[in-house]
C-alpha cells in the first residue's frame, strides 16, 4: 500500500503539491489525471523516493521511501523522459538494473526481448525513441517489483507493445498483486487499465475514488419538461433545478431542450426532477474525457474562456 499524508512539495517558493493525502491500496491500477503542471509527475517521483518532500510523509508498505534501499527495491519508476544511458547497450542497461533489483528474471526479460526483437548489443543511442521506451519497459517488467510507476508510460509504444504490456500487467496483478500507478493524458488508456483514479489540479487532489463510481456518479441529461400550455414552454433556470437538490456542473438550454451535466445517482436525479414533470429525460453516463473537462470547468480551467477571447 502507498500512503501519502499531508504531502507538500515546493520548487523554490512554489507549492507544486499542497498538503496532499492519497492512499493507493495493494493490487490496484491507479490512474493520475490532471491538467499540465498539476503535480502528477511530482507525485510519482516522491513515491519512488527521488524527491524529498518539504512536508508530510510518503509511506510504501508502512515504511518511508526516501533513502530507503529496501523499499526502493520493490518499486520501479518509468520516467517520462527516455533512458539516459545513451552509451550503454541493452545488455549493459539490463545488467545495471539487475544489480539493484533482486527479483530480476533473466528468463522473463529474454522472453519479452525476443518477442519484440530488440537487439541486445546495440548502443541505446542507435535506438529510436519507441525502442528506448520498449527497452526500459521490458526491463521494468522483468524486475518483478511490487510497485510499478509509469509516467506517461504508454506514450511512444506501438499498439502491439501496448497490448503486450497490458497483458503482462494482468498476469502480474493476479499473480503477485502488482500495484501500478499510471499518469497519463490518454484517458482511454486510463479507462481500460485502471480501476481507481485521482484528479489533480494546482497541486491539490480534487477527488480520488474507484473508476466505476466516478463514471456512475456523473451524467449527461437531456430533458424536456411539460409545457405550461401548448404554446408556452416551461423555462426553468439552473437555480430552480439546483433548488430541487440536483448538483449541476453544466447547464445549457436550447429552446425547450435542456442539456445538463449533473452529479449523483441516476435514480436519485430522476426522482428529484420528477416534480417538474419531464416528458423527455435521457440520462447517459459521461466518458472519462468529458468528466475531466467538466470537473475542470468547475475549477475555472475552462476551454470556453479561451474560445471567447
Amino acid at each position, binding site marked *: 500500500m502507498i500512503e501519502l499524508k499531508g504531502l507538500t512539495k515546493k520548487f523554490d517558493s512554489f507549492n507544486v503539491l499542497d498538503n496532499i493525502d492519497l492512499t493507493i491500496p495493494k493490487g490496484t491500477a491507479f490512474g493520475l489525471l490532471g491538467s499540465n503542471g498539476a503535480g502528477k509527475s511530482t507525485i510519482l517521483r516522491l513515491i519512488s523516493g527521488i524527491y524529498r518532500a518539504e512536508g508530510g510523509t510518503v509511506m510504501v508498505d508502512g515504511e518511508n521511501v526516501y533513502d530507503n534501499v529496501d523499499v526502493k527495491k520493490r518499486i520501479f519508476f518509468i520516467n517520462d523522459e527516455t533512458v539516459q544511458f545513451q552509451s550503454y547497450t541493452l545488455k549493459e542497461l539490463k545488467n545495471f538494473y539487475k544489480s539493484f533489483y533482486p527479483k530480476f528474471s533473466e528468463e522473463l526479460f529474454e522472453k519479452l526481448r525476443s518477442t519484440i526483437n530488440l537487439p541486445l548489443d546495440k548502443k541505446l543511442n542507435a535506438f529510436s525513441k519507441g525502442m528506448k521506451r520498449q527497452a526500459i519497459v521490458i526491463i521494468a517488467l522483468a524486475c518483478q517489483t511490487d510497485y510499478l510507476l509509469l509516467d506517461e508510460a504508454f506514450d511512444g509504444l506501438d499498439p502491439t507493445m501496448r*497490448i503486450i504490456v*497490458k*497483458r503482462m500487467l*494482468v498476469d502480474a496483478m*493476479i499473480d503477485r498483486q502488482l500495484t501500478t500507478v499510471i499518469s497519463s493524458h490518454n484517458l482511454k488508456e486510463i479507462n*481500460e487499465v485502471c*480501476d481507481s483514479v485521482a484528479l489533480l489540479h494546482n497541486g491539490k487532489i480534487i477527488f480520488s475514488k474507484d473508476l*466505476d463510481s466516478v463514471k*456512475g456518479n456523473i451524467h449527461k441529461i437531456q430533458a424536456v419538461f411539460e409545457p405550461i400550455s401548448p404554446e408556452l414552454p416551461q423555462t426553468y433556470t439552473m437555480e430552480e433545478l439546483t433548488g430541487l437538490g440536483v448538483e449541476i456542473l453544466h447547464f445549457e438550454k436550447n429552446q425547450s431542450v435542456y442539456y445538463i451535466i449533473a452529479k449523483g445517482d441516476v435514480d436519485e436525479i430522476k426522482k428529484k426532477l420528477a416534480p417538474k414533470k419531464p416528458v423527455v429525460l435521457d440520462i447517459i453516463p459521461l466518458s472519462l474525457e468529458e468528466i475531466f473537462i467538466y470537473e475542470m470547468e468547475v475549477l475555472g480551467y475552462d476551454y470556453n474562456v479561451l474560445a471567447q477571447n
Partner: protein
Amino acid sequence: MFDIDLQSRVPIYEQLYKKTIELIIKGVLKENDQLPSVRSLAKELGVNPNTVAKSYQELERNKIIYSVSGRGSFISKISNSSVKDYILEDFDCSVEEAVRIGITKDELKSRIDEVSL
C-alpha cells in the same frame, strides 16, 4: 464472445455484466456453461482484472452465475437467476412507452398473444 466497446461511456464492468446476460438470453451461454477465467478475459480484452472480477462478483450476487472454488464460474439455472427480472424490466419500459404514445392495453395484450404463439 465478450466483445465490449472500450470507447463506450458505459463502465466496462457494467458492459460485461450486460453482455453476459445477453448471451444467456440469446442462448449462447447455457446453464452450467463455464465462463472464461478472470485472467484470460482480462488479457483478451486488455482490461484491468479487478474490473472483470467485479462484474463476475456482481453476476454472482444476482445469482446469474455461480462459482466453484478452484474450478471457475458457471451459468446458473435461469429460473433461479435475475435474468428474468432483467428481461421484465426491459418489457416494462417498452410497455410504458407504448402506453405513452397511445397504444391501448388491449392492443398490447393481443400483441403478446401473437408474439408468444
